[in-house]
């Protein structure tokens, strides 16, 4: 009985703690300007989509959304295209120095952005990559490769080796084995890696700040961080924009919660 009570409390606290702060922000987005500025603050909004209209049309939020979709989408595709073969080789083919490579890759994922910011900026300047989406995608891919490779390598490792041996006997090359046999089997892992990469690229701030200086090209986190009104801080519009920026991710979590959890735990602990 005590255990059930404890669990109920735990559930309530987990849900409330996770959602309440953001719900307050979401409530704000439905207030009127007068309600936003009320001191003391009001609990309930009288409703209305005013701030959403302002955020979408006056602040061109859809342009930021489009930029984020392009950047996060391209990052995900490219990271998978590069990460899948690498993960397969690291999981299945006996190569000398493999362990070092995996360890090194993990270290790269922990690099502070600052440590490479200057040279990356200069490199991108040399290839006209500043202020372009692909210029942002390149560092994003670099930083999402480790997680993609780790998750996928752990997935490939779990797949039965007999299938591969059968394929090899039939004369398949490594590449053919990967594309014809392993890829369909690893689909759930690939899906998980894709979601995680997408979330990372959707949320990243530092490189976006460094690389995208033109408002028409900027991604959502930049738009939110540098959000400005005419004279005062437009909390209502900011809240509406924040809700819109977060909505796709919340949907993703609701739909794919199982994949995210199984993917992360597989990649992290089972190794």
């Amino acid at each position, binding site marked *: 009985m005590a255990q059930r009570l404890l669990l109920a409390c*735990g559930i309530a606290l987990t849900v409330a703690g996770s959602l309440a702060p953001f719900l307050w922000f979401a409530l704000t987005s439905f207030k009127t300007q007068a309600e936003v500025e009320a001191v003391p603050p009001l609990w309930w909004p009288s409703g209305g989509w005013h701030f959403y209209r302002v955020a979408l049309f006056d602040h061109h939020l859809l342009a930021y959304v489009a930029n984020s979709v392009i950047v996060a989408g391209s990052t995900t595709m490219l990271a998978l295209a590069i990460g899948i073969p690498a993960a397969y080789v690291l999981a299945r083919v006996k190569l000398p120095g493999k362990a070092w490579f995996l360890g090194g*890759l993990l270290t790269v994922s922990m690099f502070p952005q600052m440590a490479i910011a200057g040279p990356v900026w200069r490199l991108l300047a040399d290839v006209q990559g500043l202020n372009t989406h692909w210029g942002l995608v390149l560092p994003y891919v670099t930083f999402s490769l480790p997680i993609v490779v780790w998750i996928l390598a752990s997935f490939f490792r779990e797949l039965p080796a007999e299938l591969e041996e059968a394929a090899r006997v039939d004369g398949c090359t490594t590449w053919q084995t990967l594309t014809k046999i392993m890829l369909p089997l690893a689909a759930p892992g690939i899906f998980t890696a894709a979601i995680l990469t997408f979330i990372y690229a959707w949320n990243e701030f530092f490189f976006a700040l460094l690389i995208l200086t033109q408002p028409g090209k900027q991604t959502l986190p930049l738009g939110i961080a540098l959000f400005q009104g005419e004279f005062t801080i437009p909390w209502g519009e900011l809240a509406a924009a924040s809700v819109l920026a977060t909505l796709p*991710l919340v949907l993703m979590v609701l739909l794919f919660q199982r994949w995210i959890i199984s993917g992360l735990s597989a990649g992290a602990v089972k190794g």
Partner: protein
Amino acid sequence: MMKSALRALSADHAAAWWMLVPALVFTFTLAVYPVIASFILSLYRIILSMPALGEPFVGLENYAELLRDPTARQAFLVTAGFVALSTTLELILGLCIALVIHAQFPGRGWVRAAALIPWVIPTAVASQMWRYIFNDQYGLANLLLFGDRVAEYVPWFASPGVAFLIMVLADVWKTSSFAALLILAGLQLIPDELYEAARIDGAGLWQRFWHITLPLLRPALLLALLFRTMDSFRVFDLAFVMTQGGPGDATQVLQLYGYKAMFTEGRMGYGSAVSVSVFLAIFFLSLLYIRAIGSRLLERNA
């Protein structure tokens, strides 16, 4: 027969290497080379706003400067404090969340999704959200504590210590669920039979947690601890959006300090020295990581 099989194998090896090449190219061009370049840059004195000074090689002078600079010291202390406090809290909270979402109950999927939501919210959004919650006039915190006694409302961000704690709170709120995920994976590896046996022996809830869950969870906890340590060392967005480092440098974290030196002040050499120092700090931490846990993983991979 034997020979052709060997040839096929070595051709296969080559193919395998080729499949690694794109990943290697990215990693070397955009991670390894830049770190080396940053180190070289840090040996020069480069001030972008004063090209007339030239770009003299100054050896380790930028590092000497860094050691002397009280702001750098403060940034290091703030960052270290942030890392220690936020990872500790995240681990404790993460463990609690993991225990909850590991239990069997109807609607568990929804609770798991709810717990994940803070983790997927962009840090820029979370920063603005907490800035608003602790706003001196419109904030939820003041409303909850003081209701309509407006004159008592507290300007939270005006106190250095509180501003720092809000930054910690925002990070804990956002990333505890990530720690919870890693710990949950560890929980799932503990066989139910152990708990059954303990229950038969008459062990209470607390005893089972203390004698079974916690010891068996050690690897997962260690992993979460080190992941979070290294990640929180890189804190930037929170300070950039919420406080810009103030008041009185109470939230001046290393990455923000380095960013300002490099991109606001145009001191490329000095800024690079800051970056390289952050890098080295994290690098040694990750060596620790590889030693503590990684070796086990690497052996399995090899």
